[in-house]
C-alpha cells in the first residue's frame, strides 16, 4: 500500500579531502525495517543527513519518489521523520508548545487524536505542559519520537533510536517501529545488536570505503 521509494544512486561523500563512503547503490522500495551499521565515524549520521536532504553528497544523488513522482529536495523534509542524537528541540517551550509550533511551521492542521495517542504511547501525557529543559534525557529522547511522527511520515529515519532509554522504553520503541514498518519504510543506523536484529536487511558502511 505504501508507494514510497528511496533510491541511492552511486552516492559518494568526502569530508574535505577524506573519503567517507563511496558508491552506495541501494533501493528501498518495500515497506520494512532496514539497517545501516558501521563503527563510530564511519559516516552513518552523515549518510542519514544526506538521505534527509540536509546534507549534500559529493557525488551521486538520492531520489525520493511518492506515488511514482519524484520529490523535490526542498520538500523531502515534509515526508520524513528524523530522530538523531544531534537533534535538540526548543527547550524553553513545553512539550505541548513544541508540538503546536512545529505543526504550524510545517503548515499542517493539528490532528488532536493523533497527538493524544502519541503523547500516551510515549508516556509524556502527564508532563506535556512542562518545559523541555526540565525533562530527563530519556524523556527528551521520547519527545524526539513524537516530533518525528507528528506529520505521519512515509519514511522514518532513526539514528541510534534507543540511546538514553531504559529497557522498558526500548521495548516500547521496538514495538512501535515494528508496527510502523508495516506500512512505511524505517531506516535504522545503530551499533546496538538489539536494534539491528529488527532489520530485515542491513548494510555495513565499512564495505563502501
Amino acid at each position, binding site marked *: 500500500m505504501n508507494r514510497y521509494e528511496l533510491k541511492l544512486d552511486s552516492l559518494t561523500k568526502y569530508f*574535505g*579531502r577524506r573519503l567517507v563512503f563511496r558508491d552506495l547503490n541501494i533501493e528501498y522500495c518495500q515497506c520494512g525495517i532496514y539497517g545501516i551499521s558501521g563503527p563510530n565515524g564511519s559516516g552513518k549520521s552523515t549518510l542519514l543527513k544526506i538521505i534527509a536532504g540536509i546534507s549534500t553528497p559529493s557525488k551521486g544523488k538520492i531520489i525520493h519518489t511518492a506515488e511514482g513522482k519524484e520529490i523535490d529536495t526542498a520538500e523531502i523534509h515534509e515526508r520524513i521523520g528524523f530522530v538523531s542524537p544531534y537533534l535538540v528541540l526548543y527547550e524553553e517551550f513545553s512539550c505541548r508548545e513544541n508540538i503546536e509550533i512545529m505543526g504550524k511551521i510545517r503548515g499542517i492542521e493539528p490532528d488532536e487524536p493523533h497527538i493524544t495517542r502519541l503523547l500516551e504511547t510515549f508516556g509524556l501525557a502527564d508532563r506535556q505542559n512542562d518545559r523541555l529543559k526540565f525533562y530527563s534525557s530519556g524523556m527528551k529522547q521520547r519527545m524526539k519520537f513524537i516530533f518525528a511522527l507528528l506529520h505521519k511520515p512515509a519514511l522514518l529515519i532513526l539514528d541510534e533510536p534507543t540511546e538514553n532509554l531504559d529497557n522498558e522504553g526500548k521495548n516500547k520503541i521496538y514495538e512501535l517501529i515494528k508496527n510502523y514498518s508495516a506500512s512505511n519504510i524505517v531506516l535504522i543506523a545503530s551499533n546496538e545488536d538489539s536494534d539491528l536484529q529488527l532489520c530485515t536487511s542491513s548494510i555495513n558502511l565499512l564495505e563502501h570505503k
Partner: protein
Amino acid sequence: MSYVIIAGISFPIVEKPEAWYHFPLIPGLGENAKIIFFHVPTAWITVLAFLMSTIFSIKYLRKKDLDDDGKSQTALELGMVFCILATVTGAVWAKFTWGEYWSWDPRQTSIFALLLIYGALFALRSAVENEEKRATLSAVYSIIAFVTVPFFVFIMPRIMKGLHPGSADDTNAGPVVNFKMNSNMYLVFVLSVVAFTILYFWMWRVGSRSLNIKEKLLKNYR
C-alpha cells in the same frame, strides 16, 4: 619558467627609470610621478585578484572542488599584499602631491573598503575549522562583498569630491595617464603593468599549486 625570466628582465627597468635618459616630467608632479610605475600596477592587481578570488569562489559553489577554493584563497592572499602596497604607495604619492597622506578621496575610500573586505575574509577563514564549510562561507561572503562594490562606485562621488585623475568633478584636469605620458614613460608604464600582471599570475600558480599539494599530503596524516 619563462614567466620568471620575463619578470626578471622587466624588473630592473621598472626599478631604475632614471636609467632612461630622455624622461620628461609631468608638469605639476615632478619626480613624484615615478611612483606611478608601482602604484597603478599594484592597484590593478588588487582588483584583479579580488575578481579572480570571487570567480573561483563561484566555481567552488558550483562544482564543490576544493582545488578551486585553494585557488581562490591564493588569489586572496596575493590580493591582500598588493592591496596594502597600493594603499601605501598611494598614500605616499598623495602626501607629496595633494599634501596629505589620506584625504578620503573616492578612490582612497574604495581601496579602503577593499582592504576591509579582504580583512573580513581572512578573519572569516581563520574562524572556520571545517574545510568545506570554510570554503562555502568565504565564497558566499565574497560574492556578497562583490555586489556591494558597485554601490561604492556610485556613492563616493556624491559624498566627497575627487582628487584622483578621472574623477567626476576633475576640474584641474589632472595628469590623466594616457594622454600626458611621454612615449618612453608610456613604454615603462605598460611594461610595468604587464610585468606585475605576469608576476602575479606566476605567484598565484605556484601558490595555489603548493597549497593544494600540501592539503593532499596532509590528508594522509589525518
